[in-house]
């Protein structure tokens, strides 16, 4: 059997019915493009989450947070929960020797608080305002590039000072791209929720290596006048979430935070210094479990036995990340799988229609010597051919799907198309072609030549 002749015949069949062939392939095109696109998006997400894990520092630390849900046996104590307070911090400092560094933090974010930042008529919307101790910088791997970080004296005096990141600078003073020079606003006064704060430091711009290259290239083009400078500082709003978060943050001393932003919220007669998290660093990974146990012992006393706190380790987060990625993978695979099944059914349907249209032709071929196997091969190869072409168009279309997804949900994680996913997609389309060609092929091969010839 001449393979070239079979292929040529398949091409003729497809060219003979261009519209029908395209409609047939449409399911495969959709299936393959969504398969590749989902894969790319999940891969992008995975990259982002992995980056985030690295950016958040090492594994030798844990975070104590409040837990809204008490265990069942304490459900009746819900109205007595003490919450995390500075008292816990002091108790841990005094009674948990395994904990090498303890950093409390209070967070206000643009999502759960009114947060406005202003400077001479320009506004910024920071992702978060953090009140914490200077040691937090180590935990999140922050680096002050201009000016200085606030220190223990600022904390003790509750000074109205802040350290901002480049995104805030871009919003309030203009980005290097729009102004043509890098503004260093150290010493300027900005208003956070209408309260004046002096900028004493600014962090470096956080970005990946590729982002840095792209940014420098863009700067060069702007300088050479090849592209126009953006009117607003959008640059810090790009990149993966962890970078955007770090580039759009303001840090102030914890005590300043508690006094200026938190005291008015308290309903207690005496101000209770509620905090959001206590971040703990342990000397090494081996002592992590023991350290958590020690912290639990201390907190059980300060919280009068009420377990309204929880511990989060980076390991938990890594697991969560893995789980999230897996879930996205599975749901992406299911969606693409459904599309491929639909596409396969479409191909099978058309192949069935095509063979009942061509019964007479099949009869002729059999009369001049085509074996059942030759007829089967012809139909199968036509089916594979259709789905491979569909698959290849699908690969091209996946670029459009990715662009569509990116524009609908502008995400921090650039979708990444991997070679493996392309190969997998092509193999899938071949599989679909084979599976949907088998039944029509068998059916066609089983026509008796005489009956097929009689068929009108």
């Amino acid at each position, binding site marked *: *059997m*001449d393979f070239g002749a079979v292929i040529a015949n398949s091409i003729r069949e497809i060219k003979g019915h261009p519209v029908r062939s395209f409609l047939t392939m449409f399911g495969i095109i959709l299936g393959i493009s969504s398969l590749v696109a989902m894969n790319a998006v999940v891969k992008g997400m995975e990259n982002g989450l992995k980056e985030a894990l690295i950016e958040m520092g090492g594994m030798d630390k844990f975070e104590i947070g409040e837990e809204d849900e008490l265990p069942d046996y304490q459900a009746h104590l819900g109205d007595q929960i003490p919450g995390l307070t500075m008292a816990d911090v002091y108790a841990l400092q005094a009674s948990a020797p395994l904990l090498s560094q303890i950093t409390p933090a209070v967070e206000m974010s643009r999502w759960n608080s009114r947060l406005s930042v202003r400077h001479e008529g320009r506004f910024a919307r920071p992702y978060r305002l953090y009140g914490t101790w200077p040691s937090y910088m180590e935990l999140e791997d922050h680096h002050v590039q201009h000016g200085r970080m606030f220190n223990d004296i600022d904390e003790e005096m509750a000074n109205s000072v802040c350290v901002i990141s480049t995104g805030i600078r871009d919003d309030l003073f203009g980005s290097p791209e729009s102004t043509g020079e890098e503004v260093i606003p150290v010493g300027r006064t900005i208003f956070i929720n209408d309260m004046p704060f002096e900028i004493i430091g600014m962090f470096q711009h956080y970005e990946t290596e590729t982002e840095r290259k792209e940014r420098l290239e863009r700067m060069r083009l702007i300088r050479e006048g090849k592209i126009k400078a953006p009117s607003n500082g959008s640059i810090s709003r790009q990149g993966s979430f962890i970078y955007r978060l770090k580039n759009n943050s303001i840090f102030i001393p914890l005590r300043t935070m508690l006094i200026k932003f938190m005291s008015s919220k308290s309903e207690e007669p005496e101000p209770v210094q509620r905090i959001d998290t206590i971040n703990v660093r342990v000397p090494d990974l081996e002592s992590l479990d023991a350290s958590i146990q020690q912290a639990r012992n201390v907190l059980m006393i300060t919280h009068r036995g009420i377990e309204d706190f929880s511990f989060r380790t980076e390991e938990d987060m890594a697991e969560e990340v893995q789980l999230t990625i897996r879930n996205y993978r599975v749901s992406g695979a299911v969606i693409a799988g459904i599309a491929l099944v639909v596409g396969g059914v479409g191909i099978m349907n058309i192949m069935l229609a095509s063979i009942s249209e061509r019964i007479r032709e099949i009869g*002729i071929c*059999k009369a001049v010597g*085509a074996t059942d196997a030759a007829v089967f091969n012809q139909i199968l190869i036509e089916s594979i051919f259709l789905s491979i072409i569909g698959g290849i168009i699908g690969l091209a279309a996946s670029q459009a799907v990715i662009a569509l997804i990116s524009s609908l949900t502008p995400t921090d994680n650039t979708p990444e198309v991997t070679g493996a996913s392309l190969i997998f997609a092509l193999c899938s389309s071949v599989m679909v072609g084979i599976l949907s060609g088998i039944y029509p092929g068998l059916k066609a091969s089983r026509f008796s030549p005489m009956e097929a010839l009689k068929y009108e």
Partner: protein
Amino acid sequence: MALVELRGVTKIYDLGGEKIHALAGVDLDIESGEFTSIVGPSGSGKSTLMHILGCLDTPTGGAMSIDGIRVEKARPKELARIRNRKIGFVFQFFNLLPRLTVQQNVELPLIYMGYSAARRRERAMEVLGLVEMDNRSRHRPSQLSGGQQQRVAIARALVNEPRIIFADEPTGNLDSNTGEKILQLFHELHAGGRTLVLVTHDPDIAGLTPRRIEIRDGRIADEVDTRLVRGTEQSRFALTRDDRDAVGDSPREA
């Protein structure tokens, strides 16, 4: 041994419990180089006989061989091989594949024989020359007249150098003038030494072949061999109407 041998061949169709005896025991020998016509009214079983002779169908009972190969119990793959190597078909409705060119249609049996593209082309052009259609090799069947299409179909039947060619009502779809020319082509092929079997319901056409077999109710009802009557092999154009009437009345002793 004859090229084709049938011994007590029966064919029974089972139509929902009702058994149709399309062939009720046929004994027939076709020698190499013969030009035989099978004639009979519709429903007589002549088409069934031709399908069995052409290995498009298998007999229900009896024995049959083509070129020494037993076919009554052959598997579909073997039948396909016999059709491919030993048999050529010409049909009433030409049965060319509409999307293929003339040349590609003629090449079709060679594809299943495993010829290379170059050899296929060479051989196809050769037989197209034989039927004087080589100047139309790039045309599609729809661009040809009925007579031209039938010529292409004959070329396709010849391309694999078959031992025997079956033609099922080859002039049934042509006007009488064109039909004449096709028949003439068959007689030329016969004169060239080929074995031909012509199935027709038209006694006039059947009467022009040297040997005539009449089928009625699934049996051979009558057989005429002009070679036996006249003692010499006759070309159809040598026969007059009177000759034909004469042979028609002389049953052959089996």
